[in-house]
């Protein structure tokens, strides 16, 4: 077993923050992804152009650059804009919110693609049947389409989640004390960088494996009652 020299608790605290940030970002990404998917599927040209621009930008820019842009860039941009209008303000964003915002923004784009694909997989007859029953468009979406979409979306969302958890390691660069940052602090304090970065890697690996297992369970649950429904 790895000898952690009494710094194990730091890794444990780091894991907790990593999980909190991951869950919050995933929740955000699901909301952003759903909104973007419906905007893209709508008949509005302006909305689908907006979503196209969003996904294009996210896919072409590294996560680290976006994170630095949000954390350092946005406060200075606001300050410069305020200065141009004759105000002096000091703006700072805390690393926790900057991290969640950036990861949400990035993975919302990937979740959007997942939901769009899932929506297209729900047979049109289901929507038409809902309409024939006199349900409003919102009711059809909420009661008929969304529950069925999630069955198709789970494999894709599972992949997004596993990539997202690893992406949260980047937030250590802006000093959020999550797993990677705490491993770094412990590595410097003990002068055992390999031990602590290896321990951190194994923890990420454990999260990935647990997620794979949970994804399998979730797919089984979502396919209950569907004959031959395991996708």
């Amino acid at each position: 077993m790895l000898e952690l020299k009494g710094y194990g608790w730091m890794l444990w605290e780091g894991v907790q923050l990593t999980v909190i940030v991951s869950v919050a970002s995933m929740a955000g990404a699901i909301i952003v992804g759903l909104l973007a998917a419906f905007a893209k599927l709508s008949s509005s040209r302006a909305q689908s152009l907006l979503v196209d621009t969003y996904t294009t930008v996210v896919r072409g820019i590294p996560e680290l650059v976006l994170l630095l842009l949000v954390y350092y860039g946005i406060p200075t941009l606001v300050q410069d804009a305020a200065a141009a209008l004759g105000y002096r303000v000091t703006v700072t964003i805390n690393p926790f919110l900057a991290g969640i915002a950036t990861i949400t923004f990035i993975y919302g784009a990937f979740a959007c693609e997942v939901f769009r694909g899932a929506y297209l997989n729900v047979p049109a007859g289901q929507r038409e049947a809902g309409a024939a029953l006199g349900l409003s468009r919102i009711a059809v979406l909420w009661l008929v389409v969304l529950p069925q979409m999630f069955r198709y979306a789970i494999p894709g969302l599972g992949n997004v989640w596993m990539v997202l958890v690893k992406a949260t390691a980047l937030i250590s660069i802006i000093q959020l004390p999550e797993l990677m940052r705490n491993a770094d602090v412990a590595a410097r304090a003990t002068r055992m960088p390999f031990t602590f970065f290896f321990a951190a890697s194994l923890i990420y690996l454990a999260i990935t494996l647990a997620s794979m297992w949970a994804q399998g369970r979730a797919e089984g649950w979502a396919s209950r009652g569907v004959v031959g429904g395991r996708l």
Partner: protein
Amino acid sequence: MLTFISEHWSAFARGAVITLQYTAISCLLGAILAIPIALMRLSEKRALFWPATVYVLFFRGTPLLAQIFLIYYGSGQFRPALEAVGLWQFFREPWFCAILTLSLNTAAYSSEIFRGALQAIPRGEIEAAMALGLSPLLRLRFILIPRALAAAWPAYTNEIVYQVQATSLVSIITVMDITGVARVIASRNFDFYQAFLTAAAFYLVIVYLIIALAKRVEARLHAHLPAADRGVGRNVRV
């Protein structure tokens, strides 16, 4: 903003050259490494299958940042041993650790792409090659690898695009790629948003140039196939 770009244009251009170099070298080394790993993953021999499987699981299941730190900082813990075998002079260099980690990382992802492509080759083609009396090595050289490379190309271009973006992490261990240049300029003059927006623009241009180039290669590789069999869109890397 425009004055900022014209003032720092040459620094960012030098950074772009570094980004492209790191991408090209690591993709090349990674692809070379990926082929034997994919073949090992398909092997029925446990001694071949398990090491490759653990390798792929480790490099795909942990963050690239953790891998970079593990190799760059982690190697310091073994300094006496590395000095004894004469490898320390490499491991203390950021460029060496960056290329090594990026190559090992992309090799794991590429091997999965390549494994899928190998598995997708119709059984009949392999049997036809056997019927012609080709040895296993010749089958690999003339049938399996060329076929799998062409089939893997659309997914592999995706991987190259990810690799361009992944190289931004080497700036954390002081390599002066696009992100590294942006970070230095930003902190020197407090031009944060100008520097990172410029970096973002550089990456966008590089990524979409590569995608456009890859589409042309794909059209050539798949010219003999019906349109329906051609590549699919980009998705999240898993």
